[in-house]
């Protein structure tokens, strides 16, 4: 795997922000001016984000702040009212090809979805967005009528039409890696929450996305099962996967994220080095949020 910043040594310079990103070519994900409202309620107000390849962005903030909506927009599950989302598909090196080749015909090209377009984003561009990213859901959302292996194969075989034998071998290896080698023929209801979420992660990985999205991946888990899932996500971060994670696990975010963004009221209140944001937040709102989270009683 390509050497990347270790999780405990995040980049000292913020990788994103209005006009501050260093090398634009390094950005895998670029979000500009993303807006969304439900009826008259504005949930996102001009969100700007940049995530470089191999970086992990953690979105933290109170519930209802809009962080999950940002994530859902990235996967086209939510259509924004304005702004753009760009995901590039540059292939960094040979190991990355093996891990995340995506569609080779698209390699190097950038997909931009413009939500401000008069007729809204095209279905095609939303599909392209989904093709580049894969999501891990809070409630796993595994397909209950399919076995563990079938859950993983559904996307690569049925949608991407890759050879079944090849994908099966890959899927079995991934399942073995997350400790589920003996569960491939089980149905989701036979698994614990932690096991189901690991299947959810493998399902996402098998799509060979450029970008992994995690929506509060441990919020539905019993406390004793959280560790396994977080450890797996941390391993993926170390391997160089580019991720955006919505989480309430501050300790985890501090360890794994290259950058933390605090979202409140539909805006990014502040962002930067995890240790700086969590230990010395610049904004009063961030300080209050952290205080409430760390002192619940």
């Amino acid at each position, binding site marked *: 795997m390509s050497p990347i910043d270790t999780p405990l040594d995040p980049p000292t310079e913020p990788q994103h922000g209005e006009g501050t990103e260093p090398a634009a070519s390094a950005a895998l994900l670029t979000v500009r001016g993303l807006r969304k409202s439900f009826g008259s309620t504005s949930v996102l107000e001009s969100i700007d984000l940049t995530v470089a390849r191999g970086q992990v962005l953690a979105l933290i903030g109170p519930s209802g702040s809009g962080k999950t909506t940002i994530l859902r927009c990235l996967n086209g599950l939510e259509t924004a009212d304005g702004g753009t989302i760009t995901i590039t598909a540059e292939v960094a090196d040979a190991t990355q090809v093996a891990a995340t080749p995506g569609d080779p015909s698209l390699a190097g090209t950038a997909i931009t979805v413009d939500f401000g377009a008069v007729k809204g984003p095209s279905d095609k561009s939303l599909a392209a967005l989904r093709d580049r990213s894969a999501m891990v*859901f809070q409630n796993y959302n595994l397909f209950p009528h399919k076995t563990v292996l079938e859950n993983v194969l*559904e996307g690569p075989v049925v949608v991407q039409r890759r050879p079944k034998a090849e994908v099966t071998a890959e899927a079995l290896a991934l399942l073995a890696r997350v400790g589920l080698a003996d569960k491939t023929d089980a149905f989701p209801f036979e698994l614990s929450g932690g096991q189901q979420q690991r299947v959810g992660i493998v399902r996402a990985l098998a799509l060979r996305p450029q970008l992994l999205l995690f929506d509060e991946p441990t919020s539905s888990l019993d406390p004793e099962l959280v560790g396994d899932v977080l450890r797996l996500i941390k391993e993926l971060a170390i391997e160089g996967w580019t991720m955006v994670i919505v989480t309430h696990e501050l300790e985890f975010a501090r360890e794994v994220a290259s950058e933390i963004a605090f979202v409140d009221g539909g805006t990014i209140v502040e962002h930067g080095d995890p240790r700086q944001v969590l230990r010395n937040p610049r904004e009063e709102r961030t300080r209050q949020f952290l205080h409430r989270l760390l002192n619940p009683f």
Partner: protein
Amino acid sequence: MTQSNWDLALSALGPILMGAIQGTIPLALVSFALGLVLALVLALMRLSRQRWLSAIARVFISIVRGTPLLVQLFVIFYGLPSLGLLIDPWPSAVIAFSINVGGYAAEVIRAAILSVPQGQWEAAWMVGMSRRKALTRIILPQAARVSVPPLSNTFISLVKDTSLASLILVTELFRQAQKVAAFSQEFMLLYLEAALVYWVICLVLSTVQGRLEKRLDRYVAH
């Protein structure tokens, strides 16, 4: 029961079973299959974001459910000829029963589709599926499980309702019983015999329903 009653019941069993095999059972099977296709189309129309599609389906379902099946049958067989449209008894019965099943089962299927959590749609889209693919591979298989018990009810009702086809001259179970009864004047005996055969058919269907439910339940926690 006297010996002659037994003999009559036994000799009537032949024509009654023939009526079941040639009339009742194929009529019910064909009408149910066509009705389910219609019901799925109507359910998808009802769920469509196109308001006019949804409205058409809603009106259609309302008419089907709001008028007696016998009247529907008579309109098609005795009414349409006055418009120059002459349809034979068997196809008339199939048309009427299919439309009837379509109207009732549409709401069952619509409810079953809606019972599948939104997260299943999202997961299907996430792995790259189109709406159509998500529907056929992810949503409908799960909706099928939920809709087996109510659809079995519809089917069992249909089997019994096919006796109405005797009134438009379809040779089926009940009409055969009627013929023998009229000839022998043993009404009680023959109508009870017909009832018994209907009951046996429905018992078999209930067993099939039970097995189907068990099969579809294999991926659900018990």
